[in-house]
């Protein structure tokens, strides 16, 4: 761990100004915001993150959950994962988000972790976290140790020959199906980014994970109103029963009318290099009769482009079963 300067931002513009001096907002950033610190400090201790300056944003007034006039919800960037999961509106209208948050990490971590930090949590690829090993994401151009190494937990969707790291977040999978919007204040003012555009595929620049630029501060996330009559579900599959990242997970929001799927949103976690929404599976399922055959066809479509590595071939079938089961749960007659 190297020495760094710790500053506390007095307001959002000061935070933006401090971070604007960073060389990048991606891997290798010289200035980092710290929220809960559960990702950042961990990686600093491993020398994977080596910021010269750490800007504390915990005192900024970004910790509210507020209903919006259109029936949607505004979630501040520093709202803790635990508070979000237990918020009554979230539990009522966005159950999938509450379930996803509670499936993640441990109670202690959820008390610290924030909405903004969770959006930006880094991969658990073991080579990314080990500075003695080559890793394109950590040090571009050095190679990918996971291809041909320990890759059981890594991605099968959205991979490239440069990187196969999984986006490990549970919350992100729920945000994808809820069609969240991420609101950012940057050097050029504020802007909003649809969730699907926020994370980027690794391609040949796996060090770049999002569209954020130096200075960009996530201020809040908004959710559109829950579609009337829709039901949602989050299922996480892993080796042990608790306190482990997903091998595969599925978030679904489904509206059923007359025994048929009227609207479906589906995303997978634990298998993609970014939170993996499958619009192909969604359109395939829309209009279909509720039931295993249609669910299985949708799951096959969602995994059609899967590219397994040496140790994670089982994830193809696991992710399909996960999605089918989540759809079943969400469509069981109430």
């Amino acid at each position, binding site marked *: *761990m190297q020495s760094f300067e710790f500053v506390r931002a007095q307001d959002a513009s000061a935070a933006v100004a401090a971070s604007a001096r960073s060389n990048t907002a991606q891997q290798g950033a010289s200035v980092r915001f710290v929220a809960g610190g559960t990702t950042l400090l961990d990686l600093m201790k491993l020398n994977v993150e080596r910021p010269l300056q750490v800007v504390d944003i915990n005192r900024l007034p970004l910790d509210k959950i507020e209903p919006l006039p259109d029936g949607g919800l505004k979630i501040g960037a520093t709202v803790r994962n635990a508070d979000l999961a237990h918020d009554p509106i979230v539990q009522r209208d966005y159950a999938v988000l509450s379930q996803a948050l509670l499936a993640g990490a441990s109670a202690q971590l959820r008390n610290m972790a924030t909405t903004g930090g969770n959006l930006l949590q880094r991969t658990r690829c*073991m080579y990314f976290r080990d500075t*003695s090993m080559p890793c394109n994401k950590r040090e571009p151009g050095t190679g990918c140790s996971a291809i041909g*190494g320990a890759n059981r937990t890594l991605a099968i969707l959205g991979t490239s020959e440069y990187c196969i790291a999984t986006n490990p977040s549970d919350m992100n999978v729920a945000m994808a199906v809820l069609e969240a919007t991420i609101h950012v204040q940057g050097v050029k003012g504020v802007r909003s980014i649809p969730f699907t555009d926020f994370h980027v595929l690794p391609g040949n620049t796996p060090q770049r994970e999002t569209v954020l630029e130096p200075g960009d501060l996530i201020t809040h996330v908004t959710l559109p109103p829950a579609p009337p009559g829709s039901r949602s579900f989050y299922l996480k599959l892993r*080796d*042990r*029963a608790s306190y482990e990242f997903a091998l595969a997970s599925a978030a679904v929001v489904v509206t059923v009318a007359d025994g048929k799927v009227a609207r479906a949103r589906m995303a997978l976690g634990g298998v993609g290099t970014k939170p993996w929404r499958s619009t192909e599976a969604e359109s395939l399922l829309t209009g279909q009769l509720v039931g295993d055959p249609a669910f299985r066809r949708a799951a096959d479509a969602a995994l059609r482009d899967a590219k397994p590595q040496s140790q994670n071939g*089982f994830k193809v079938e696991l992710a399909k079963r996960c999605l089918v089961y989540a759809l079943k749960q969400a469509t069981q007659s109430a």
Partner: protein
Amino acid sequence: MPATRQATLSVIGKAQPRVDGPLKVSGKAMYTSDHNFPGMLYAVPVCATIANGEVQKIDTNAAEKMPGVRAIFVRNTIGKLFRASEGVAFDAEMSHVDENRPPLEDDVVRYYGQYVALAVADTFERASAAADAVKVTYSSRPPNVEPRLAPETNQKVESERGDAAKAFDAAAVQLDQTYDLPPETHNPIELHASVAVWDGTAFTLYESTQGVVNHRNVLAQMLGVPKENVRVVSKFLGSGFGGKLFPWTQSALAAAAARQLGKPVKFVVSRRMMFQSVGHRPRVTQRIRLSATRDGKLTSLRQDWVNHTSILDDYKENCGEATPFMYSVPNLRVTSAQARRHVGPPTPMRGPGAVPGLWATESAMDELALKLGIDPVQLRLVNEPKIDEGLNIPFSSRHLKECLSTGAQKFGWEKRNPSVGSMKRDGLTLGWGMAACSWIAERFAFAASVELRDDGTARVSTATQDIGTGTYTILALLVSERLGLAVDKIEVALGDTRLPPGPLSGGSMVTASAVHAVTEAAAKAIDALLATAAKAHGSKFAGRKASELEYTNAMVHAKGESASSGMPFADLLRAGNLQSVSGAGSSQATFGSASKPKFSSHSFGAQFVEVTWQPEIARLRVSRVVTVIDAGRILNPLAGRNQIEGAVVMGIGMSLFEETSYDPRNGAPINSNLADYIVSSNADVPSLDVHFVEYPDTHLNELGARGIGEIGLAGVAAAIANAVYHATGVRVRELPIKIEDLIV
């Protein structure tokens, strides 16, 4: 009627909460890394990032100039470190290390994470930063961490009778399967740690060790100083699971650095280093061949195992430990071999040998039962031996049959439908499996002293240590029982080489070894008290013969008269102006003894497991575990139950999660943290049912207590694998059992 139910014991056998509990929950218990001294420095090693090769150059320039840095030690600056000779006896002279090469002895790197230099600075953070700044150049060769093990030495015959090959070939029913166990890493919550203080002549070493006496003997040799110039202290351990039985290289490095710098030095091993340089259970592959008659009588049993070991050390995982006596079988052959890998030295892990061995043989027994169409419990009962057929001697006390029948009854085994996947509950498929287990019952040499003091309290002391299993409490109970003093009137002093030599906390042997020594020491202290009573001025009994006096519940009185007519021992001591009287006691070792024993002494047990299986999401969970153990008299049922439960939790991890993975390219244990090396979480552990069948084994000690620390792990893996087969139809012969094994 077992003797236990007749004997009149007042505190032994009753639930006694830990006497050290309040210290632990209030944070006052001093663990090794809690020790701080004025001027203390912090040591952080530079760990090799190759597993096979040589150090060519170590550039310490930048690191030496960093703030707070006192030294960067390398091979030729650390000072002379010797090898320790092997002292084979398990007594006060014992001297054993699993890694024989002293740290920094040469420039050859033989495993990933081997220490190649040591940064010492005034804070931990500065030492870490300096260690990171040391630049090491290596010449590197590809490491061999190949998981498939083939014997590299001749298979050594461990036990043999009859002609197993011939009997196998002639048998009606045969089974020939291979079972694999991956390397497992001990993960006690307390990291290995050493705090070394050098006063110019002598060392005081605060260590996280399961054996202060052995540690002292080894370190004195490595440091090249007389034994009396090394004191080792280990008051509390955040457990060890075998990983702390023998010293690891951080201890010699901390001491050597303290000597070079003339300052106390603290060296705490990181969680990552725990996977590299402080031992692990080695990878084992075992071929099991069984044959039987159609009615289930075993006709032959062969077990041929290979375990990996490090490049320099010959570690043998004694998988055949329980094989020769578990069942009646006329033809048997057990062989062992090792295969060298570029890994750190393996070391014992809870239930060494027997736990991996029984995983294989008890899985094979289940497979054989299936072939025969015989119930697995029945198959074990049919093959119950009358004597230990390996040594041809009787058992001191063997009640496996009762464990099996009691376990079957508590579990409800008679309701088991043997056909695969046929049992359901709440939409889940159930799998029921079982296995038998065993563990050695032996004694180490043990010396103890008991003092009676003028404030009415007693003190018992021995150098052995409490690794978290409850040794403080057991010693208090033993003294309380003999002296009739309340437990809170007894001080227990442990974990210090200045005390009478006590043994390793290993092999589940401390309690069984302590009984005689402590009871004898208490009796001798009473003798001394009575002699004093007969002499001391102001004693009510001055002038009487000691032989006419008696001690009952803290009172000295005349024989034949009531205790209340006597004098409290504290008054007696005060009257004679004595602060205390004391007595010494000892037990002899049976373990490692050259003479053939008269009895075969082992604990036994049976474990029954229910798993639930949800094929639609490939979810497997353990939902019930019933364990029945025959481990002699249970001295403290709270501690006893706690040990078995903890072992079962560990067994769930062993069966379903735990595996140290070495990267094939650089030999690094790649999942070297607690997020990637998965152990059971609370949510993985159902409520656990534990029963003891209590038959005191008085051949081992007068109370008939055996050990209970390890046996609870010995049947879990096989019982789970057998239950998984029953639920899924998939026979997994390589642990851990993973989702990918079952998602077919």
